[in-house]
């Protein structure tokens, strides 16, 4: 018979996760930086906090291949064909062919292609000659991880402008291929980009089971999986043309009841449409909101259309994390589509039929939030 005490003990142990050593170091540094800027606390009009990005130490989705070696570009092709993201496919197909190799610490990284438009930056690279990936308990290799810094032609790092970063990998024999995307407001200038890797490999050893408390004689705790990150310096400089796309600042609004939505920015590029929309509710604080009924599983209850073409939006980023730092248009979200447009001309309409907001990000999230009915229609015509 299993007693309650045993169940509770099992639960505590099962949930005693330990962060990876590298990850904890990163978190400590990150919070130290945060705590070093006390002026942010009460200052009105401070720069809005963006969603935090872990700087390119991405645990990427892993696509395991069976069969013949496909080669670096072939592997990368598979990533973009499998992504379900039309915009990514466009980026890969239109990317500059670079084929730049750098070797350090016995590991060769090849920057195959790179692309930038006003919403996206893509780099596709391969990694050769890493030590064999450690195997998990299920006999599968751990996915590759990497740590890198990307600087645009003005010297800004991706952390300064990107709202999200995504890496996908595919591996075959001695070769790993990675497609790494950054989304955000890309600087609209041609010039030289610099991508510098400082670590690449398999971070399996970063995790130590929560079972490994002092005195535990479990062999897994005595012999944790190897830490197989390879530190080095692989630096790539490459030129890209001026990012394609159009940025509009229409500031068009629609009010229904007490709620006003304002389209403050529309970024139209070949890989994605980004709509930045603010919500103000008269007599109420808006700390966060979204175009859905309720605050549960998120449904993007909105449409972005240009003339007869619809663009699906499946993601958003909360731009104004601090209610005290909101501008005149209230709490701002940035909505992103999975496909883009080569030309901006036409009549763009964004319709949001329902929305839910909450008045404090520090309060418990209620299942239903505060629900408002529209519709709100935001239209901008580009001649």
């Amino acid at each position, binding site marked *: 018979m*299993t007693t*309650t005490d045993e*169940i*509770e003990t*099992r*639960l*505590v*142990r*099962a*949930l*005693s*996760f*330990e*962060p*990876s*050593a590298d*990850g904890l170091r*990163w*978190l400590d540094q*990150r*919070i130290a930086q*945060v*705590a070093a800027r*006390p002026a*942010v*606390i*009460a200052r009105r009009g401070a720069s809005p906090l963006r969603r*935090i*990005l*872990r700087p390119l130490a*991405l*645990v990427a*989705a*892993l696509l395991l291949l069976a069969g013949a070696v496909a080669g670096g570009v072939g592997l990368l092709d598979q*990533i973009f064909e499998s992504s*379900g993201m039309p915009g990514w496919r466009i980026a890969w197909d239109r990317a500059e062919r670079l084929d730049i190799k750098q070797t350090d610490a016995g590991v060769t990284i090849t920057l195959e292609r790179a692309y930038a438009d006003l919403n996206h930056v893509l780099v596709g690279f391969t990694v050769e000659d890493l030590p064999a990936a450690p195997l*998990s*308990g299920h006999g599968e290799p751990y996915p590759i991880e990497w740590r890198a810094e990307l600087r645009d032609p003005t010297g800004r790092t991706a952390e300064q402008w990107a709202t999200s970063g*995504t890496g*996908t990998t595919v591996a075959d024999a001695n070769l790993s291929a990675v497609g790494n995307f950054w989304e955000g407001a890309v600087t609209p200038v041609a010039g030289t980009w610099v991508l510098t890797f400082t670590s690449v490999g398999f971070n399996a050893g970063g995790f*130590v*089971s*929560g079972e*490994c*408390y*002092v005195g535990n004689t479990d062999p897994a705790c005595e012999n*944790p999986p190897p830490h197989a990150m390879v530190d080095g310096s692989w630096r790539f400089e490459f030129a890209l043309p001026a990012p394609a796309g159009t940025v509009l600042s229409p500031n068009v609004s629609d009010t229904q009841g007490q709620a006003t939505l304002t389209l403050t920015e529309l970024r139209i590029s070949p890989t994605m449409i980004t709509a930045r929309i603010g919500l103000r509710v008269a007599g109420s604080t808006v700390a966060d909101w*979204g175009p859905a009924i309720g*605050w549960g*599983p*998120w449904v993007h209850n909105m449409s972005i259309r240009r003339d007869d073409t619809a663009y699906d939006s499946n*993601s958003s980023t909360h731009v104004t*994390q601090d209610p005290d730092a909101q501008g005149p248009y209230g709490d701002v979200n940035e909505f992103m589509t*999975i496909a883009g447009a080569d030309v901006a001309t036409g009549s763009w309409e964004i319709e949001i039929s329902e929305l839910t907001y909450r008045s*404090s*990000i*520090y309060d*418990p*999230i*209620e299942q239903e939030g505060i629900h408002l009915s529209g519709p709100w229609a935001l239209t901008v015509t580009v001649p």
Partner: protein
Amino acid sequence: MRATLVEKDLGQPVQSEAERLDPSEFGLLYERHRLSVYRYLRARTHSDADALDLAAETFERAFTGLGRFRRRDGGVQAWLLRIARNAAIDAHRRHRPTVDLAGADAHLGRVAVEADRRDQASAEILDLVGRLPADQQDALLLRYAGGLTAKEIGFVIGKREDAVQKQIERGLAALREAF
């Protein structure tokens, strides 16, 4: 690296905390609570990196919102875990489902654990927790990963202490029966 399991008396309420938080002590607050915040978030995410991202977001939000903290709202740990829970829900709703080549399940409240990184017994019990109703999962994770009392959990999820206690007891009963 050898990790140390810090045993915590789950029944002890938050004690000796000031009514307001002093920004100069934020580092201490972080050091004291980072593990419980991380563990709760790790139980709700699919990777160490995701949990660390959300932990960073939690402490950034906390630092920005220090002025809003009130001791009567459940204490520091409950306040931090409320922020962490909100951040996890936010992250889930912004997830790009088509990008997830691994096909990972990102449902709200689902205990997302890479079984290959846990021993068999732990993987088994976490899998069972993942099958519980969302409110029971929530209560169990806040109690056994976050280390909160039922009363503190009530402040996090906006429910009464006795209602939370019932959710915990139901969840444990279901687990006990399954074992």
